[in-house]
């Protein structure tokens, strides 16, 4: 598949970040519509690619959901048949031409490892019980319409609009990046020590699909979490080990967390009201949410981890 071969060392120099965590049933029902409105508002910051991680419809215990992406849309039926033969398929749904959501009757780790090993041409955008990641190298408006984002409901979502400044625009270089089961990262900024860090993480057995700096940040978090760090601890490790500019938003099964680097060149603004907590690169994205005018609004402090939901990682 093309995207695996693409040398994509883009930074995320401008880009837009959005995230929303529902605190009410009404907000959960309309979560996709809220995320869509925020994403489209951030199109100026990143017209090249768009993506969303949405947490919804947990698979039953022992089952898992995989979001898969393939450059070859004609091969989907064969791929699903192969997965069914290998580990079983409870349900498979095509989303657009290149994406599919597959529920399997086995755990997420087993399902992910099987697809990784047996179907090397299929990219795994996300794996877990709850998370679904969709991303593509298309404009945010086109993305929202192609994936019918506004019709989705869920508990929380993170989104990203990418402005690639130094490299090719590919689906694999789009955000969110999976950082483990039910985990993801969106990034606005650029890292300067990602090449050395990538080599170090490779030695730790972490795989990479691109030359993208944000993928290195995601892999770093994966590695720290795998070592047993809490999400907060893993994020605090970024302050020591990552050199560069970043506003990160990290999604987990239960909520999300936000961290800005100590210099904080990259913008972030947060807001909270009775119905939701949200983050965006700019206030105008928050302003699309109902009740934004009366919400508490603040700018996250440099080098401080903010989190919502129970973000402890098992």
């Amino acid at each position, binding site marked *: 598949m093309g995207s695996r071969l693409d040398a994509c060392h883009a930074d995320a120099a401008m880009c837009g970040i959005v995230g929303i965590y529902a605190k009410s049933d009404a907000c959960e029902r309309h979560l996709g519509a809220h995320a869509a409105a925020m994403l489209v508002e951030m199109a100026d910051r990143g017209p090249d690619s768009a993506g969303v991680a949405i947490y919804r419809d947990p698979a039953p215990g022992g089952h898992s959901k995989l979001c898969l992406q393939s450059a070859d849309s004609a091969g989907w039926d064969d791929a699903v048949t192969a997965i069914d033969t290998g580990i079983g398929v409870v349900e498979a749904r095509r989303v657009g031409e290149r994406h599919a959501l597959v529920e399997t009757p086995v755990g997420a780790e087993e399902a992910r490892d099987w697809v990784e090993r047996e179907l090397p041409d299929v990219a795994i955008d996300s794996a877990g019980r709850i998370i679904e990641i969709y991303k593509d190298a298309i404009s945010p408006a086109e993305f929202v319409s192609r994936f019918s984002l506004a019709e989705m409901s869920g508990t929380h979502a993170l989104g990203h609009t990418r402005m690639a400044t130094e490299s090719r625009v590919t689906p694999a270089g789009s955000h969110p990046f999976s950082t483990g089961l039910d985990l993801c990262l969106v990034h606005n900024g650029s890292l300067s020590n990602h090449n050395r860090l990538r080599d170090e993480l490779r030695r730790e057995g972490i795989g990479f699909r691109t030359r993208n700096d944000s993928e290195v940040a995601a892999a770093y978090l994966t590695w720290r979490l795998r070592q047993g760090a809490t999400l907060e601890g893993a994020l605090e490790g970024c302050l020591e080990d990552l050199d560069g500019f970043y506003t990160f938003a990290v999604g987990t099964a239960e909520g999300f967390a936000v961290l800005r680097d100590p*210099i*904080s060149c990259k*913008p972030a*603004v947060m807001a909270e009201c009775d119905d939701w907590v949200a983050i965006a690169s*700019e*206030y*105008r*994205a*928050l*302003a699309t949410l109902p009740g934004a*005018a009366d919400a508490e*609004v*603040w*700018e996250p402090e*440099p080098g401080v981890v903010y989190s919502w939901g129970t973000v402890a990682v098992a």
Partner: protein
Amino acid sequence: MSGAAPDSTAAPSRALDLSQLSVRELNAALHEAEDGRWEVLDPVGKHAIAAGLDAELEVEIAGNVGYYCAGMNKRATVRVKGNCGVGVAENIMSGKVAIEGDASQAAGASGHGGLLVIEGNAAARCGISLKGADIVVRGSIGHMSAFMAQRGRIVVCGDAGAALGDSIYEARIYVRGEVAGLGADCVAKEMRPEHLEELAELLAEAGIEDAQPAEFSRYGSARRLYNFNVDDAGEY
């Protein structure tokens, strides 16, 4: 546009609604105006609202604004009834810009004249490269504020973040609370009578009555970076 009223000092403001107008249309209308009171409705965080004004207007913005609000302001009085994004009143030349909420980073950056008042807090790099404007913040300011500030005054009723006044030239900084750290060549200085006097004037202009000049400390340049020190030649 709605609510047109005859000109008089007591005239109600004329409303410009950003749910009906583009920012470009709004700014064009404000640029054409020679005086009067104006209200900007539904700003919803849009950028460059009321930028480039050059007349004795009174503009009130009913909500939160995005980047570069009231940038390059000359003569006008702009009041934001909310928070503002990056670079509010950037390069302000004269007039007054008042923010009722918080300001994001680089508030008043490189301002040449006039007064910026922030009722809430200002984030990082407040007054960076200040060139003669005055900034009064009722709350606290973030890190790297007054970086390379050349002229003007910055008054902070709360605390200041790390690296305050790094590489500062001749701007003067007054802080009432704690300073997390001073940047290169920025030092605490004696409060002489003329400083207490100018501070009292600035607080009065900003409408702050609950802070006393004697509660503030003054910071400014040690002027050690102005000239090359031959003893440092080995460093290069």
